[in-house]
């Protein structure tokens, strides 16, 4: 599951990008993101692509596994491209490339910044209830990923995974999801009980881990700013 994979990258990675101040990194990535949205030329897009490949390398993010995720938005953007392609093929291509690049910038961010840092950022403007839900989602996700992993394994060992027999396979997968749904709801009930015991009454406090601003942070944000300006000028 790629979410778990990325979580592992962001938490256990040790690259120079991981070490940056999260808020600065968020701001800098936003600049890159805007630059991507504003790109109007294939040359600009190519340059941005090279920059992302470089940043992935710098962040020790495996391009083949993580970068591949950018193909999803590329695929969906085909819908839009197909319409635009009627007008000019460059226009169509740009749409596809732009959405892939936008995804790359977010993937770079999420692969180098732990979830709790991002939650902290959100907590600066989102209502506390939503933040709590995000925190619960995160924990529940990893508990459920384990469970579904175990269930899929069990099904496979018991002869229930059929790559070719779609009908039987779907039936079995639905059973798994049924069990999972049941357990999810019961788990949330138990969690509720436990957290009430621990004093939960509708607000989890989010802690920020103090980080200073280093030279790297400044260099990075200036770099991103230059790119943005460059894109605007071109």
């Amino acid at each position: 599951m790629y979410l778990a994979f990325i979580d592992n990258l962001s938490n256990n990675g040790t690259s120079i990008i991981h070490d940056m101040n999260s808020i600065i990194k968020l701001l800098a990535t936003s600049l890159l993101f805007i630059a991507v949205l504003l790109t109007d030329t294939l040359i600009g897009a190519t340059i941005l692509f090279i920059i992302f490949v470089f940043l992935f390398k710098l962040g020790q993010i495996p391009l083949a596994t993580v970068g591949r995720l950018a193909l999803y938005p590329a695929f969906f953007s085909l819908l839009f491209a197909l319409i635009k392609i009627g007008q000019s093929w460059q226009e169509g291509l740009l749409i596809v490339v732009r959405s892939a690049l936008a995804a790359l910038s977010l993937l770079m961010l999420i692969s180098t910044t732990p979830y709790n840092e991002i939650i902290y950022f959100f907590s600066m403007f989102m209502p506390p209830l939503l933040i709590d839900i995000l925190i619960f989602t995160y924990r529940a996700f990893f508990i459920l990923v384990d469970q579904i992993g175990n269930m899929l394994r069990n099904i496979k060992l018991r002869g229930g995974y059929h790559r070719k027999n779609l009908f039987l396979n779907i039936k079995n997968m639905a059973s798994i999801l049924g069990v999972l749904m049941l357990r999810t709801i019961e788990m949330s009930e138990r969690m509720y009980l436990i957290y009430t015991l621990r004093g939960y009454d509708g607000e989890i406090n989010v802690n920020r881990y103090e980080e200073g601003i280093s030279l790297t942070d400044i260099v990075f944000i200036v770099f991103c700013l230059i790119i943005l300006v460059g894109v605007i000028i071109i």
Partner: protein
Amino acid sequence: MSHIHIPDGVARDAWWLLVIGFAVTLIFLFFILRRLDREQVGKKIPLAGSISAMMLVTMSVPLGFIPFHLNLASLCGIIVGPELGFIGVFVVNLILAFMGHGGITVVGINTAIIGIEVLVGNKLYGLFTKKWKRSMSSALATFLALILSTAITFGVIFLITGSSDAILQGHHDEAIHFLSYSGWLAIVIVLAIGIILESVVTSLIVSFLSKVKPELVDRSEKHV
């Protein structure tokens, strides 16, 4: 992929649509969060979180040789109600935006669109179960909810690209015309398969649950 996740960067010229998407989603969220019963809030937060996690995890279930994944928005609407379901969809879209599914500028509009599935799925299911069996009702409710959300997605796509006639009239260039035509055909087929799959799976899950824990899918009593 029974849903189209609109990605970042395609709606540059229709930014107003994204703003509307955000506005709609935020207004809904605002009212849902405000309406959450103070007494019940402690209980509902873990439930909403768990349901969001469930939707995320569902995407990793292999359905066999076709590379589809489910997201069970309609099912979640049926089980936890439209309000928590809507929050779930928002959370899922927000998290997925960082993973290349959908995008950050389009979280609002994606949530609004898929949120419709939650709402419509839930309401239709309530309506249908008065007459039909739960499995049948859930299949139909999900199917219609997905058709509706897909239709709306296309509406949005046309609004964004500013042309609905592009696909209908095509281009003078034969090659591009063909590309465009077969591309659309492929998309329609893919979506149709996705919608049917999700309806079938939803129905199977509902009938499983009604054997094992019927109160989860029961609407005869008053239920969220």
